């Protein structure tokens, strides 16, 4: 297995730089320290250097907690490497802690033996107390398990920035660039693009730009000097073998937004997006609000109910109505979603899951809304459900949702989560010009028009929009005659309509691809089945186990309802099925019910993504149990 651990025992290696396959670096400091900004810059140069990467910002729940407190710690993690990167990394190999609170919060997750760079300048008594340290941890041996690099970053930054005449306050705010300067040196990154970025960002404040550049350079120079002294060691991480093409980094939130825009473009529809802000779903609203110039309409509704209702109204009027929220908001949309089912209008509902129940932990991730997505409505009220597995995958998932919604005249629920929404990945951009369109054809022929007559293949009813002469008709949430759409209380008609709404899912199942195996054998001792953002850790874990010769496969579902038509048969080919989920066992319940396979759950509900290691351990345990 390729190791992600720095070769630490060798503290003073000689050039050439030790080469690493992949590294996890975590920047942490106070929310006011500009951690996210610095982290994103490091990610940008790392991408330019040709590494594959995954990043995850870890904001505090508080907007701006008092300086120096543990609940005000902001962190940014990046996993980059010379190989395919599927997650933002388990435990950091390198931690940069710009204050005591950051050290306090982040140290426990850092890999034992990892490098920890601390800004001693911030280790004042007051800050130590705020962080909840009884004594200065740098002064005792409580950090013996780590390779601590103590630097007075504050002082060195002040010195570097001073020449430009910035205030002490502004100078200190350059600390983040000093720190990444050092990390740039450590991983041999080029500063040029960051320098021009800083100039552009602070066009109106050139002094601030210069101070930051000076800090960046100073941090870098510090590394060079320390290396000469033998105090520090630099590494090199070779470029990954990525598919050739044009790349950018993208978060799940952006990818979803763009996927929706491209999807409606391919459907030749207008996009009407209605939403009410909620963590962690708001980035989608924000991204789409910026696209008004492309003809996207965004509507910030008074609540989630109004948002879905406005989206339904827009779909009724001939746009593609899309709405988005997180768990509590999805709960509120339940009733209206049933209306969309009854009205048989296309609709896309995005749910960016967070830790529940109730308000739960809004900034933490979870996969606990699958059951709600499938069953969170009264009556027999089937909708299609898709889940995105990674930030870049949000793009394709969104397009697939638009395609299904418009082809089958059905609401489609897309599940993302707080992790995916905020995490970033390099993305090889597709060319929209070359994507296959799936245009919607509104019904415009009055002859023989019946609002609930159906396309025999898809069971979709005709979409006849207000404004079209001769198509005037009435629809609603009461049960409708299976042809005319008039109100009907007939028992046989209700049975037929209920069966038809359910049968749409079967038609979708015929339309979607068969389930494939991500990695590993097509039959064997163990299948690990996942959905959503567990993709990264599961795939990394199974990849390395397969490399080690284990008889285990990874199957990952995008289509959760309907499920791919071959899934039952596929699962029956394995002796055992293990289903890791960040919930108490939701997909596993469905697999057992549908296919009567004795699938077993591997569940974690801590608000944190799975670690690769946790999955490896669980898989190995299953494989061992089966040995004769």
């Amino acid at each position, binding site marked *: 297995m390729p190791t992600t651990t720095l070769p630490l025992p060798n503290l003073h290696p000689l050039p050439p730089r030790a080469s690493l396959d992949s590294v996890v670096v975590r920047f942490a400091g106070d929310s006011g320290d500009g951690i996210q900004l610095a982290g994103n810059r490091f990610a940008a140069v790392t991408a330019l250097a040709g590494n594959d990467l995954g990043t995850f910002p870890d904001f505090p729940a508080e907007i701006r907690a008092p300086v120096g407190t543990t609940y005000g710690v902001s962190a940014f993690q990046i996993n980059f490497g010379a190989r395919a990167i599927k997650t933002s990394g388990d435990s950091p190999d390198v931690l940069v802690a710009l204050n005591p609170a950051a050290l306090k919060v982040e140290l426990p997750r850092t890999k034992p033996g990892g490098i920890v760079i601390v800004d001693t300048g911030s280790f004042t008594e007051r800050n130590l107390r705020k962080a909840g340290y009884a004594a200065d941890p740098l002064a005792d041996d409580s950090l013996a398990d780590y390779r601590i690099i103590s630097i007075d970053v504050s002082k060195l930054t002040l010195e570097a920035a001073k020449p430009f005449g910035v205030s002490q306050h502004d100078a200190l705010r350059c600390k983040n660039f000093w720190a990444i300067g050092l990390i740039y040196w450590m991983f041999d990154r080029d500063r040029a693009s960051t320098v021009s970025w800083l100039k552009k960002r602070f066009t109106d404040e050139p002094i601030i730009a210069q101070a930051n550049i000076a800090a960046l350079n100073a941090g870098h120079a510090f590394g060079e000097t320390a290396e000469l002294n033998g105090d520090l060691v630099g590494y090199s991480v070779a470029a990954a073998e990525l598919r050739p093409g044009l790349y950018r980094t993208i978060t799940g939130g952006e990818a979803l937004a763009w996927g929706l825009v491209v999807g409606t473009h391919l459907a030749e529809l207008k996009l009407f997006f209605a939403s009410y802000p909620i963590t962690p779903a708001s980035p989608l609203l924000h991204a789409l609000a910026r696209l008004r110039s*492309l003809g996207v309409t965004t509507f910030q509704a*008074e609540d989630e109910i109004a948002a879905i209702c406005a989206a339904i*109204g*827009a779909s009724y009027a001939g746009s593609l109505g899309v709405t988005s929220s997180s768990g509590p908001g999805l709960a509120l949309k339940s009733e209206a979603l049933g209306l969309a089912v009854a009205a048989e209008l296309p609709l896309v509902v995005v749910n960016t899951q967070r830790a529940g129940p109730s308000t739960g932990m809004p900034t933490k991730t979870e996969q606990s809304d699958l059951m709600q997505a499938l069953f969170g409505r009264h009556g027999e009220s089937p909708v299609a459900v898709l889940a995105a597995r990674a930030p870049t995958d949000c793009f394709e998932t969104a397009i697939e949702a638009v395609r299904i919604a418009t082809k089958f005249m059905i609401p489609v629920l897309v599940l993302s989560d707080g992790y995916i929404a905020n995490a970033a990945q390099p993305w090889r*951009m597709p060319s*929209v010009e070359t994507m296959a369109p799936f245009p919607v054809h509104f019904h415009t022929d009055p002859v023989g028009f019946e609002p609930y007559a159906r396309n025999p293949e898809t069971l979709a009813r005709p979409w006849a929009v207000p404004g079209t002469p001769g*198509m*005037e008709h009435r629809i*609603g949430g009461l049960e409708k005659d299976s042809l005319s759409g*008039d109100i009907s209380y007939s028992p046989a008609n209700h049975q037929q309509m209920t069966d038809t709404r359910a049968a749409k899912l079967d038609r979708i199942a015929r339309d979607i691809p068969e389930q494939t195996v991500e990695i590993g054998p097509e039959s064997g001792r163990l299948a690990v089945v996942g959905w959503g953002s567990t993709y990264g850790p599961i795939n990394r874990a199974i990849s390395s186990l397969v490399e080690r010769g284990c008889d285990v496969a990874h199957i990952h579902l995008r289509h959760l309802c309907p499920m791919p038509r071959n899934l039952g048969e596929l699962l029956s080919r394995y002796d055992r099925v293990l289903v890791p989920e960040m919930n108490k066992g939701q997909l596993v319940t469905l697999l057992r019910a549908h296919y009567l396979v004795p699938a077993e759950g591997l569940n974690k509900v801590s608000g944190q993504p799975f670690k690769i290691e946790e999955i490896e351990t669980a898989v190995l345990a299953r494989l061992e149990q089966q040995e004769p």
Partner: protein
Amino acid sequence: MNVVSPIKPLTAKDYASDQEVRWCPGCGDYAVLKAVQKTLADIAADPARTVFVSGIGCSSRFPYYMSTYGFHTIHGRAPAVATGVKLANPDLDVWIATGDGDALSIGGNHLLHLLRRNVDVQLLLFNNEIYGLTKGQYSPTSRPGTRSPSSPGGSVERPVSPVLFALGAGARFVARSIDTAQKHLVEVLKQAHAHRGASFVEIFQNCIVYNDEVFAAFTEKQVSADAQVHVEHGKPLLFGADRRKGIRLVPSRLELETVRIGEDGVTEADILVHDRTNRTLATMLATMTLPVALGVLYCDPAESLDAAMHAAAGERPAGPTASELDALLRRGDTWTVAG
């Protein structure tokens, strides 16, 4: 489906759908239906561009009986659905039919926001001061003491006034009429339709089954002349069989009072002239309980949300082109991985 020939002008009947009307015999809703159909004929509404959106309730069955487009949605949410319809296609002429329960109980929030945002729709609130469809429980407009299945001892809640609520929410058009007052109602509906922005019309509607005659004190023929004042912009607020009664302002108490011309030295000059752009006056008129003020109490147009959004978006008839989208995706930091 109703294929309507565009050649000869449509009559009120042409706006009726083929569905059998299923309200209780004698229900005030029939009269409102008739008035709306007449209004559409008078304004020569295009059925293809006309949409009726409703919630749930007896009154919300309205769209089924119109030969236009119609969407019978869910309880309380018609304003939200209608907002989506109008914003998606501002060319449509959108009407909302709702009840006192639908609009003011479960749907109060959406009504507030429809009015404050000033979405260009007409909202007809059928106020029968009761939940008709669910068999007669008291509603948020029911008078204190209303006996109903859910208030067998008489309700103890204070009712909300629909028009005061609408004014408080920032509505720019607020009017009031009566189900059976066909001429008046049609006139009010036409003005509501002419107003660009959210038009709020409260219609006193008699529920013959669960709340019969609740408005009789001012709607009955014998009393109506003395119990109603029909407001008209720019005209004095006169009423009474002989039109010698009038409304006067008492500045010292900031109150309205009813006076009789010729008595106590009152002359026509003392009578307030209705100014429909004055919100304070509208509020005072709305508060009056006898006589009841009917007609357009307030009308002071402001830019509607649909117009503002349209203006902000600029002219953009079609969606983005593929190359615009490719440019979007490629905005910001990008890098090339060579083959």
